[in-house]
């Protein structure tokens, strides 16, 4: 496919890889919103990103920034700064980048699934939930106009193995924060430091309408487990999700009425869809015929 014409997706910051993915003298080609890009780290350490044509000719150059362990660019003129995740400043947190995983799905389906609690007992059985404790108790979800984000909190759910550092099943508190259409973080009870939250986030690189690369990361308090073990746990959970994500029809998230039915437990997703509709985002959505 060719570069999207969706101004909302174009005029926003998007992830294109981990900082470590771009090494000096090793230009890398990638895709973003249907457009081919080449990114190269120069001798002075700066990364330059260019759009390239089908024939490989260099076209316009794109702004770049390196933040949150990842590299960000835009195909347009963002109306606002890249979002902030202040917990990256907390030096006692362990940062774990899980790497990029290609998913044959719309990046929006990936974000929606991340916001979903009800699937825990069925997709992550005996880790993030199990029958018969399937109830999603009432919680709050809202669009926060002042920060232009979607938030959900007051969530509590029984989990058998909530984190690698968790011992035994218990009720786990959650908060969700959607910072931009393809990027989201969650806060959950920290087994090691009950007064803090552990953070798990997803940055989804929308390659095509039906294809994305998902970079998961953690900002946790965990003095027991190695980085490798933490990555393995997170990847196992995410690979369980991929089974679902690559089997949703239509591929795009439908924002029009009547296409998909929701229940009370889907509040966060309904706020997310409403927010996307208000923004007028098209990339990764399903259009009514």
């Amino acid at each position, binding site marked *: 496919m060719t570069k999207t014409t969706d101004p909302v997706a174009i005029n926003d910051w998007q992830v294109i890889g981990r900082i470590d993915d771009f090494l000096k003298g090793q230009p890398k080609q990638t895709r973003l919103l249907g457009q081919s890009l080449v990114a190269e780290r120069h001798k002075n350490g700066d990364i330059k990103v260019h759009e390239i044509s089908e024939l490989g000719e260099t076209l316009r150059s794109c702004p770049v920034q390196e933040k949150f362990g990842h590299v960000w660019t835009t195909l347009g003129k963002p109306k606002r700064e890249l979002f902030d995740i202040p917990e990256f400043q907390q030096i006692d947190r362990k940062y774990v980048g899980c790497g990029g995983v290609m998913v044959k799905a719309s990046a929006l389906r990936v974000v929606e699934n991340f916001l979903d609690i009800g699937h825990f007992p069925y997709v992550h059985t005996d880790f993030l939930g199990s029958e018969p404790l399937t109830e999603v108790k009432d919680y709050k979800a809202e669009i926060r106009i002042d920060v232009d984000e979607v938030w959900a909190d007051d969530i509590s759910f029984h989990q058998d193995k909530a984190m690698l550092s968790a011992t035994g099943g218990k009720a786990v508190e959650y908060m969700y924060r959607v910072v931009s259409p393809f990027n989201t973080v969650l806060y959950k009870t920290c087994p090691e430091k009950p007064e803090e939250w552990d953070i798990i986030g997803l940055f989804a690189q929308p390659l095509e309408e039906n294809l994305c690369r998902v970079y998961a990361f953690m900002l946790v308090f965990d003095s027991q487990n190695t980085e490798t073990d933490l990555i393995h746990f997170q990847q196992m959970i995410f690979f369980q999700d991929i089974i679902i994500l690559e*089997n949703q029809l*239509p591929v795009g998230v439908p924002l029009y009425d009547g296409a998909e*039915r929701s*229940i*009370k437990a889907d509040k966060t997703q309904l706020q997310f869809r409403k927010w996307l509709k208000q923004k007028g985002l098209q990339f990764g959505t399903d259009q009514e015929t």
Partner: protein
Amino acid sequence: MIQKPVLPKNWVAVGFSQDLEKGQINIVIIEELELVIWRDHKGQAHAWDNRCPHRGTRLSLGFVRGNQLACLYHGWQFGGDGQCVYTPSIPDSTPPKSLKAHTHRCVEFLGLIWVAPLDFEHKDIRGLESHVRDSMDFQPVRSMIIYCSAENIFNRLASIPFPPSRIMSRRLRSISNMRLIRETESVFLWEDDENRTLASYQFREIQPDFVEFNCESEGTADVLLFALQKIDSQKTALHLLLAPENWSSDPISLKLAYAQWSKKLRNQLEQVF
């Protein structure tokens, strides 16, 4: 914008009943529409759009739990009529009547599973039944995918193979010079050098994509049924049933003879001209 696929307004055979056991879930495609076909523990077969009304997850990933189909994603359970009866996230509530899977008509007849849209007016498959010689004992031969459109299958019937050798005498098998003649639109004859008829095929369309086919040689007439399932513009599934004049003492090798003959048919239909 891409038009979303819909079911055609007629009965379409999607496979043999014997290939769908209790508790089993299959995927079939009719004219690019993906369906889930599943059999509950009472033995009833069901045909629905292969997507959960909640988040579009393929229901074929799910499980048959008793007489309900449970979606893998959130465990929602649907009864045979498509009605959602249980949403585990809110376990104590009764789902609204409007919360339903996208269901279609699904019946079994002649050992085949047939699907039609809910608004198809000839909802009684027996309308079809009266056109088939129901006294005959039809048995499944095989289902196969042919890389050819259903229209082309009919256009290319002139390339149909000679009857299977299993049902022919040694005399017939020894004849090498024979000609295929299209006598009428629906009658094909094989003749030898002296214009004697060695074998004949006669086709009769029972309904679109469902054809009865009489295969006669040396005084024996076998009846075949071709049930065609259009998958897309280049792919068709053929479900083949056989009712020989008599099921000889060795019915398996008779079926096998037609099964092998059908592979020859497929090879010829897939030739690119």
